[in-house]
C-alpha cells in the first residue's frame, strides 16, 4: 500500500510540479510566519523577527533544496533534464552524432544478429499453445537420432504415467504428390492423432484426423494440408475438404487445413506441408516396414504431467523400454532414454553450439572495438567541453551529477544506435540464417528469426551495457577536470592522462582489429581448403535424383528409363558428359558399406576383413566429376549383367587392400564376390577432405540389375542452374510421371555441406572489415585531434624554422607508436586466441604465417594512411595565422 501511495505521490508531484512546489512554499512560509509571530510576542518588530527566524533556520531556498531532492521523483526529474540537455547537445553536432550512432548501431546490430540466430536455433520453443511442459523423448543414441519404432511408441503410450498426450511424428517425409493436376515433391509429416491436441492447434478449415482414424494400419488415407500448399495448389478453395489427391501413388482424402503460420514441430526443420496419420507410415516411409519393432524412425514428444519432472519421466521411460525388451527380443537393446524440454533444434546441438560460441565471441570483440572507438570520440569531446564542465563544477554541480549527465549522453547515443542496430539486425539476421535455409540436398529449412521478446530484451541489455562501457571512462575523466586550468582559458585544458587514454583506446582498437583480421584470414583459407576438394572438380556439374521407386517402377523399366535419360541428356546442347551413381548423395560421407580382401587371404572372422566404400557408378562418372585416372580404363557399355564383374579402385584402396602393388588385372573379393580390377583412379576427396582419404571400390551400375534409384550428375559448359529447365523437359519427354528431385548444382551441395565453415568465415570477415574501418577512424581521430590541439605549437616551431616534414614527422611518430604497439599487442592476442579456432581450421595451422603476414600488412597500410592524412594537415599550418589565433 505504502509503495503504491509513494508512487502515486511521486507521479503527482512529477506532473503537477508547479502545484506541489507551491504547496511546499506555502507550508514553509507558514512555518516562518508562525515562528516570526512567536518572536514578535517577545517584542521584536516584524522585520527583525523574520530576520531572526531566518538566521536560526537558514534560508528558505536551502531548506527547499534539502527537502526536494529526497524525493525519488526528483531523480527522475534530473534524468529528464539530462535527457533533454543531451538531445540538445547531440543535435548541435550532427556530424559527430551521426558517426557515433552509426558506429554504435553496427556494433549492436552484429551482436543482435548473432543472438537472433542463436535464439532461432536454440532458444525458441516448439510452436505450441502452452509449450512450457512439452518435452522431447529421445531414445539412446545406440541406434541413431534418438528415434523409436511404432510398436515401441504404442507401448510407451499405453504404459507411461508421467507423460500426457504422447505423440509420435516423422517430420522429414518427402512425399511425391499429385494434386489438382500438379505433381511434385512435398515435405510431409507422419504423425499420431494426438499431435494436434498436444500442440493446441485449431484447424483453419475442416478438421484434424481422429484417434479412430489413426488406429488401424493402412486403413484411413486421410490428410491435413498446410495453408501454403492449399493456397498454392488449390488457390485456397474451401471445397477441397473431402476431395482426394495422390501421395506416392495412393489416394488420400483431405480432411482439414492447418493454420497459416504452422509448419511443423521441428525447429529449423524442413517446413511440413502435409500431415498423414502414423498408421499410414507405409506411404510415408519406404526403407523399412514401419510397423516392425526394429524400424526406428519416429520422434516422440509429450507433455509432462503436472508435478512430474523431466528426470522422473526419463527414469520411467527407460524402465519401460527395458520391460519391453525383456518381453520381446525382437526389440533393439536400449539403454536408458532422455527427456528434454522441447526447445531449440533437436539434433546437432553440440555442433551448432560450437559455432554459436565462435560467432558470439566475434560479435563481442567487435562490440569492444566499437566501444573503444566511441570512448575515444567521447574523451575527445569531453576535452572540447572542458570549459563548460569546469563552469558547472564551479557553480556547485557535484562530480556525480556531471558523470550522470555525461553518461546520459552516451546512453542516448547508445539507444539511438541500438534502435538503428535493432532494425538493421532484422535484415542481417535473415541474411545470416539464409546460410542455414538450404541443406546439402537442396531441401529448404525454416528458421524463424523474426525478433521475439528474448531478442528485444537482449538488444536492450547489450545497448545499455555498451552505453555504459563506452561512456563511463570519458565521463569519469571529464568530471575530473581541473577547474583552475580549464577556467584560466589556456584554450587547451587537456590533462596528460586524457591524451594517454585516447591513445590507449586507439591501441586497443588496432590490436583487436589485427586479431580479427588474422582470424578472418585463417578461416577464409580453411574454408577455401575444405571446399576445394582434391582430384575432382564440381563446378559446372548439375546433380539430381530420379526416385522411380516412388511411382513403383519395376527394375527393368527403371533400367531402360535411366539408360534413355542418359542418352537424351547427352544429346542436349551444352551438355559435356552425363553419368549416375547409386544411393547416397554424391558428396555424402562415404559409407564403408563393404568388405574387401585379396583372394587367398584368410581372416578368422568376417568382421576382421578391411572395410571399403563400394560405389556403383555408370560410365563417364570420372569424366563428369573430373577425377583423374592413374591407369586402366573406364566402365563401358560392355560391362553389363552378363559380363564378368569388374571394379575400378582408388589409390587408397590399392595401397590398403592390394598392398601397393599395381593392382590392374588383379582379382579382389568384395563382399566375397570376385571382381577384376580394371582401372585405378586418384583419391577423389570432397566430403572427406578434412578426414583423409578412404578406400573406394567403384563397380558398374549397369552390372547390377537390382539397382533402382540413382543420382544423376551432368557436366555442362555453362551455368548448371540455368540448364535445369532444359534437363527437366528432356526427362519429362521420356516419362512425365517420374519425379525429378534434389536438383542442385553440385557446388551448392558442397556449400550446403560446409555451411558452418562458410558462416564462420563470412561473419569473421565482415567483422574484421568493420573493425579495420573503425580502428582507422579512431586513429585518424586521435592524430587529427592532436594536430588541431597543437596548432599553436606548430606555428611556433615553423616560425623558429622547422621544415614542414619535420612537423609532419612529429605526428607520424605518434601515430606509428599507436600502430606499432597495437600490432604487437594484437599479434600476441591473435597468436593466443587463434588456437581457439583450432576446431575450424583445416589445411592451415593456427599460426599460419601467410594469414598473420597478410593481416598485418593490410592493417599497417590502412592505419598508416589513417595517420598520414591528418598529419599532413600539420604541414599546412600557417604560423602567422596559428599564432594570431591565440
Amino acid at each position, binding site marked *: 500500500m505504502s509503495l503504491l*501511495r*509513494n508512487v502515486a505521490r511521486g507521479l503527482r508531484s512529477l506532473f503537477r510540479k508547479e502545484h506541489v512546489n507551491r504547496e511546499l512554499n506555502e507550508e*514553509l512560509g507558514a512555518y516562518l510566519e508562525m515562528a516570526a509571530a512567536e518572536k514578535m510576542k517577545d517584542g521584536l518588530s516584524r522585520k527583525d523577527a523574520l530576520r531572526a527566524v531566518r538566521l536560526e533556520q537558514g534560508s528558505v531556498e536551502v531548506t527547499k533544496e534539502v527537502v526536494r531532492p*529526497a524525493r525519488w521523483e526528483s531523480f527522475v526529474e534530473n534524468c529528464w533534464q539530462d535527457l533533454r540537455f543531451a538531445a540538445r547537445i547531440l543535435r548541435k553536432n550532427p556530424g559527430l552524432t551521426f558517426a557515433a550512432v552509426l558506429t554504435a548501431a553496427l556494433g549492436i546490430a552484429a551482436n543482435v544478429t548473432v543472438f537472433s540466430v542463436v535464439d532461432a536455433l536454440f532458444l525458441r520453443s516448439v510452436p505450441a499453445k502452452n509449450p512450457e511442459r512439452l518435452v522431447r523423448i529421445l531414445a539412446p543414441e545406440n541406434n541413431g537420432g534418438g528415434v523409436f519404432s511404432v510398436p515401441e511408441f504404442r507401448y510407451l503410450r499405453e504404459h507411461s504415467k508421467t507423460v500426457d498426450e504422447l505423440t509420435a511424428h516423422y517430420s522429414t517425409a518427402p512425399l511425391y504428390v499429385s494434386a489438382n493436376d500438379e505433381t511434385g515433391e512435398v515435405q510431409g509429416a507422419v504423425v499420431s492423432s494426438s499431435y494436434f491436441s498436444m500442440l493446441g492447434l485449431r484447424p483453419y478449415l475442416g478438421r484434424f484426423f481422429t484417434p479412430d482414424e489413426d488406429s488401424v494400419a493402412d486403413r484411413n488415407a486421410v490428410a491435413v494440408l498446410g495453408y501454403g500448399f492449399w493456397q498454392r495448389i488449390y488457390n485456397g478453395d474451401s471445397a477441397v475438404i473431402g476431395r482426394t489427391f495422390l501421395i506416392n501413388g495412393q489416394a488420400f482424402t483431405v480432411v482439414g487445413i492447418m493454420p497459416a503460420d504452422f509448419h511443423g514441430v521441428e525447429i529449423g526443420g524442413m517446413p511440413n506441408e502435409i500431415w498423414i496419420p502414423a498408421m499410414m507410415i507405409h506411404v510415408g516411409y519406404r526403407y523399412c516396414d514401419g510397423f516392425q519393432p526394429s524400424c526406428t524412425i519416429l520422434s516422440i514428444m509429450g507433455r509432462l504431467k503436472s508435478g512430474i519432472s523431466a528426470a522422473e519421466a526419463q527414469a520411467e521411460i527407460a524402465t519401460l523400454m527395458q520391460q519391453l525388451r525383456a518381453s520381446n527380443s525382437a526389440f533393439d537393446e536400449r539403454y536408458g532414454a532422455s527427456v528434454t524440454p522441447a526447445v531449440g533444434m533437436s539434433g546437432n546441438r553440440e555442433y551448432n553450439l560450437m559455432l554459436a560460441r565462435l560467432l558470439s565471441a566475434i560479435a563481442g570483440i567487435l562490440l569492444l572495438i566499437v566501444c573503444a572507438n566511441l570512448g575515444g570520440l567521447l574523451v575527445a569531446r569531453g576535452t572540447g567541453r572542458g570549459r563548460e564542465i569546469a563552469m558547472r563544477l564551479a557553480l556547485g554541480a557535484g562530480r556525480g551529477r556531471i558523470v550522470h549527465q555525461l553518461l546520459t549522453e552516451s546512453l542516448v547515443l547508445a539507444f539511438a544506435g541500438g534502435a538503428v542496430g535493432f532494425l538493421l539486425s532484422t535484415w542481417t539476421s535473415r541474411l545470416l540464417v539464409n546460410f542455414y535455409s538450404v541443406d546439402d540436398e537442396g531441401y529448404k529449412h525454416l528458421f524463424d528469426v523474426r525478433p521475439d521478446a528474448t531478442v528485444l530484451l537482449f538488444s536492450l541489455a547489450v545497448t545499455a551495457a555498451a552505453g555504459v562501457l563506452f561512456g563511463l571512462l570519458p565521463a569519469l575523466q571529464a568530471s575530473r577536470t581541473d577547474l583552475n586550468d580549464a577556467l584560466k582559458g589556456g584554450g587547451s585544458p587537456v590533462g596528460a592522462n586524457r591524451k594517454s587514454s585516447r591513445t590507449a583506446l586507439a591501441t586497443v582498437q588496432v590490436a583487436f582489429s589485427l586479431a580479427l583480421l588474422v582470424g578472418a584470414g585463417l578461416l577464409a583459407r580453411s574454408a577455401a581448403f575444405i571446399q576445394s576438394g582434391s582430384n575432382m572438380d564440381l563446378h559446372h556439374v548439375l546433380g539430381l535424383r530420379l526416385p522411380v521407386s516412388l511411382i513403383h517402377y519395376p527394375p527393368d523399366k527403371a533400367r531402360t528409363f535411366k539408360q534413355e535419360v542418359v542418352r537424351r541428356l547427352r544429346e542436349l546442347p551444352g551438355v559435356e558428359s552425363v553419368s549416375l551413381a547409386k544411393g547416397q548423395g554424391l558428396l555424402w560421407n562415404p559409407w564403408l558399406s563393404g568388405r574387401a580382401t585379396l583372394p587367398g587371404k584368410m581372416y578368422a572372422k568376417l568382421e576382421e576383413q578391411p572395410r571399403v566404400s563400394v560405389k556403383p557408378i555408370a560410365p563417364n562418372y570420372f569424366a563428369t566429376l573430373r577425377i583423374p585416372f592413374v591407369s586402366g580404363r573406364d566402365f563401358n557399355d560392355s560391362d553389363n549383367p552378363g559380363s564378368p564383374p569388374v571394379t575400378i579402385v582408388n589409390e587408397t584402396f590399392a595401397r590398403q587392400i592390394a598392398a601397393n602393388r599395381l593392382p590392374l588385372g588383379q582379382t579382389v573379393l568384395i563382399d566375397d564376390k570376385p571382381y577384376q580390377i580394371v582401372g585405378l583412379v586418384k583419391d577423389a576427396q570432397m566430403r572427406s577432405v578434412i578426414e583423409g582419404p578412404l578406400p573406394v571400390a567403384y563397380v558398374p551400375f549397369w552390372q547390377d540389375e537390382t539397382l533402382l534409384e540413382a543420382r544423376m550428375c551432368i557436366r555442362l559448359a555453362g551455368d548448371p542452374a540455368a540448364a535445369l529447365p532444359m534437363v527437366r523437359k528432356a526427362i519429362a519427354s521420356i516419362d512425365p510421371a517420374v519425379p525429378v528431385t534434389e536438383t542442385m548444382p553440385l557446388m551448392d551441395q558442397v556449400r550446403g555441406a560446409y555451411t558452418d565453415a562458410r558462416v564462420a568465415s563470412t561473419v569473421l570477415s565482415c567483422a574484421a572489415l568493420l573493425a579495420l574501418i573503425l580502428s582507422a577512424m579512431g586513429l585518424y581521430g586521435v592524430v587529427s585531434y592532436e594536430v588541431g590541439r597543437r596548432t599553436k605549437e606548430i606555428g611556433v616551431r615553423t616560425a623558429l624554422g622547422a621544415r614542414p616534414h619535420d612537423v609532419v614527422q612529429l605526428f607520424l611518430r605518434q601515430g606509428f607508436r599507436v600502430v606499432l604497439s597495437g600490432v604487437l599487442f594484437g599479434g600476441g592476442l591473435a597468436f593466443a586466441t587463434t588456437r581457439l579456432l583450432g576446431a575450424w581450421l583445416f589445411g592451415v595451422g593456427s599460426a599460419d604465417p601467410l594469414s598473420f603476414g597478410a593481416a598485418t600488412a593490410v592493417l599497417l597500410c590502412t592505419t598508416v594512411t589513417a595517420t598520414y592524412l591528418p598529419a599532413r594537415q600539420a604541414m599546412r599550418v600557417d604560423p602567422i595565422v596559428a599564432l594570431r589565433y591565440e
Partner: protein
Amino acid sequence: MPEKPSDLVQGTLDMLILKTLALEPTHGYGISVRIEQMSKGVFRLNAGSLFLAIQRLERDGLIEGEWKPTENNRRARYYVLTQKGRKRLDNETREWGRQVAAIARILEAS
C-alpha cells in the same frame, strides 16, 4: 536557553514527530514547538530536517496532511496520525524502551 541544544539521537526524529501528533494533530511549526517545549529546549528542530521527515512519514502513510486555516487566518498543513502511524509509534516506543533499558544496564554495570 540554559544549554546549547543537542542533536537528536539518530533515527528518533520520526518517533518524536509521531508522538507529538499522537497527542494532538498540528502543523509543521506546531510540531517543532511541541518537541522543543516537551524536551525543555534540549531538542531544536531545523526546518529542513523536519519537513524531510514529514514528507517521508506522509509517503509511508504514517501521517496524513490537510490544509486548514490557522488561528491567525493563514493556511497551514495540519498532520494527523493514521492507524498505521499509531501502530508504528507503539512499536517504536516499545523498542526504544527496550534499548534504553539495555543501554542503562550497560552503563550502570560496575
